């Protein structure tokens, strides 16, 4: 973890005050369904710096994948509709680009790894064909050069006997191997930004650890930024420099990875950290968050967490949507969307900010948080 920290700091020094690589600002996405309009994203703001890994954590249906797909321009529309906001990549507004213009960027500078390696490879094309595909589609390379690059790439994702694998079909490979192939495909164009949408969720735990190690190594090697989406806090904490916590279509907190464990500001984040099972003490029940995620069709006005919030402070929570900003008195770039930190309140949050939150350095899955 400390190693991770130092690289982040080094990066910040190196990059100075450059513009972020990807800036998602106030993104609003609605899904028009027969039951009504699902307000899937309600003003999501995230930034990813150069050579930085941003983890995004949240429960199922909180809008993690929608955020990723919006960035890639891959939302199915209809039913999806981007109602507002902006996504700028390296100074370019992605939402203004046509599909053809987007095709220049996606698969080349921005690539994506999907959740399930069993279904994200084309069963009728050989591994070689598929790994070469992005190169042939985006670069002016000969078939031979592409082949050579593909073999190199397969080797660098830790696949032995790469030359033979090139002629193999996906069904001859195990899940872990396939995910390595998917990663090779995603990295062969040396992208600046990799979007990893729960890349280890479909894998078993040992393979998951190997893939995480691989991603951590490759990320250093290729000096790319990563948007890493997961519902598994333990997995995210392995790789992320910073983290964005999403809840019901909002980003409720964005901070350094370590800060999340040490001094979470948002009540939801704090509950998340608390729900990490501890090895000490003998509790019968795992801590959970009371209640359930609100419906996103006609969502409650104000803070979407208000109904479950243990620090509910009254009317303001139900009526005013809290903006995501750095509260006064907090150092660094930690941002939170909560009325507890409104300036005019001037009160301290009901827990010591900045101190050790206590016994939270462990493993948490937000699945366990889902109130039941």
């Amino acid at each position, binding site marked *: 973890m400390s190693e991770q920290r130092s690289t982040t700091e080094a990066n910040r020094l190196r990059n100075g005050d450059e513009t972020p690589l990807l800036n998602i600002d106030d993104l609003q996405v609605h899904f028009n369904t027969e039951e009504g309009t699902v307000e899937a994203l309600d003003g999501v703001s995230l930034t990813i710096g150069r050579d930085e890994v941003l983890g995004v954590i949240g429960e199922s249906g909180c809008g993690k994948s929608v955020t990723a797909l919006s960035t*890639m321009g*891959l939302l199915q529309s209809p039913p999806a509709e981007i109602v507002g906001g902006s996504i700028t990549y390296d100074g370019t507004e992605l939402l203004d680009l046509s599909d053809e213009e*987007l*095709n*220049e*960027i*996606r*698969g*080349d500078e921005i*690539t*994506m790894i*999907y*959740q*399930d390696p069993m*279904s*994200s*490879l*084309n*069963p*009728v*094309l*050989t591994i070689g*064909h598929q790994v070469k*595909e*992005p190169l042939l*589609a*985006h670069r002016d390379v000969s078939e031979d050069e592409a082949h050579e690059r593909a073999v190199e790439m397969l080797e660098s994702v*830790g*696949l*032995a*006997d790469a030359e*033979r*694998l090139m*002629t*193999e*079909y996906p*069904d*001859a*490979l*195990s899940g*872990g*191997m396939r995910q*390595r192939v*998917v990663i090779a*495909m995603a990295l062969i164009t040396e992208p600046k930004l990799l979007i990893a949408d729960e890349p280890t969720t479909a894998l078993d735990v040992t*393979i998951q650890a*190997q893939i995480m190690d691989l991603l951590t190594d490759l990320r250093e090697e290729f000096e790319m930024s990563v948007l890493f989406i997961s519902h598994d806090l333990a997995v995210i904490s392995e790789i992320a420099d910073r983290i964005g916590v999403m809840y019901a279509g909002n980003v409720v907190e964005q901070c350094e990875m370590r800060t999340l464990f040490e001094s979470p500001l948002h009540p939801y984040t704090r509950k998340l950290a608390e729900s990490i099972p501890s090895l000490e003490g003998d509790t019968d029940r795992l801590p959970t968050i009371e209640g359930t995620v609100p419906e996103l069709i006609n969502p409650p006005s104000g803070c979407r967490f208000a109904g479950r919030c243990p620090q509910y402070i009254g009317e303001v929570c139900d009526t005013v949507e809290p903006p995501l900003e750095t509260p006064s008195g907090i150092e660094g770039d930690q941002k939170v969307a909560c009325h507890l930190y409104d300036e005019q309140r001037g009160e301290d949050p009901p827990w010591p900010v900045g101190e050790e939150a206590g016994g939270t350095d462990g493993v948490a899955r937000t699945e366990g948080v889902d109130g039941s």
Partner: protein
Amino acid sequence: MSSDTHHDMTDDARTDGGTATATDGSEAVSDTGPATGRIARSKVVFMRVMQNRFAVFGLMVVLLLLFTAIFADFIAPYEPAEQNYNALKEPPSLDHPFGTDQYGRDVFSRVVYGSRYAVFLGVVIVGIEMLLGVTLGLVAGYYGGLIESTIMRVVDIALSMPALVLALAIAGMLGGGLFPLIVAVSLVGWRGFARLVRGDVKSVMEEEYIDSAEAAGLSDFRTISRYVLPNAASSIIVYATLTIPTVILWSAGLSFLGMGVQPPKPEWGAILAAGRGEIDDAWWIATFPGLAIMVTVIGFNGLGDGLRDALDPRQVR
């Protein structure tokens, strides 16, 4: 992951293919290097077809038909239109294995030459049907929305017309003959292809590898040609194989009704029609072209069934 695991995995996965190739003689395999990927896969499909007796019979019939059509000049003892007034309506004999017709033409030679019509019509018409149907089905399934609705409504309208009446009307309007026959039968058959392909494409579109192709920034054409079409191909192949006999039947049927290939051309349906009146005193004139049609249709059906089982092993038989 250690490299050992890879070897274990791939070796395991290979054993199905491996046993199949082993029975095939290992010399051939070692010549072309280790049987991986595509080669191993086509071998597996071939072996599966060979395990099905009906399919093997079908394959043999189809091969025999192709052989006959190609080498008709050498197989047929007489010219198809050669008349011999010394041998009218002769029953089958060594000289005339299928007998002769009312003009003294050798029925065997005519049936042999007729295989050319069967093969030609089967291939050309199914080709046209595929071109039309697969293209429309692909476009409809891939793009969806208004494009899909429009195409599929056209298909629905086309499907609402009774096939035989439609074919007869078209062939009649165009005046009978080979070309009208091709147009008429093609316009009847493409509808099925369009429906089938559109459905298959829609299910393929749900797969994650299509998303990943889009995420890789591939053009529509590349996505369709490399990801969508190949994944829908096996059912297209099977459907095409099973459509060939239908097309041969339809062609023979239209020719029989006088709307297709005209006598004295040796098309099976036309021969059958000409021999129909003589069935009482020269049964062989109508019987042998009829048998040829029957065997061909059964053969293609057998091959099609076998291919379907081989290409989709999960399907319950």
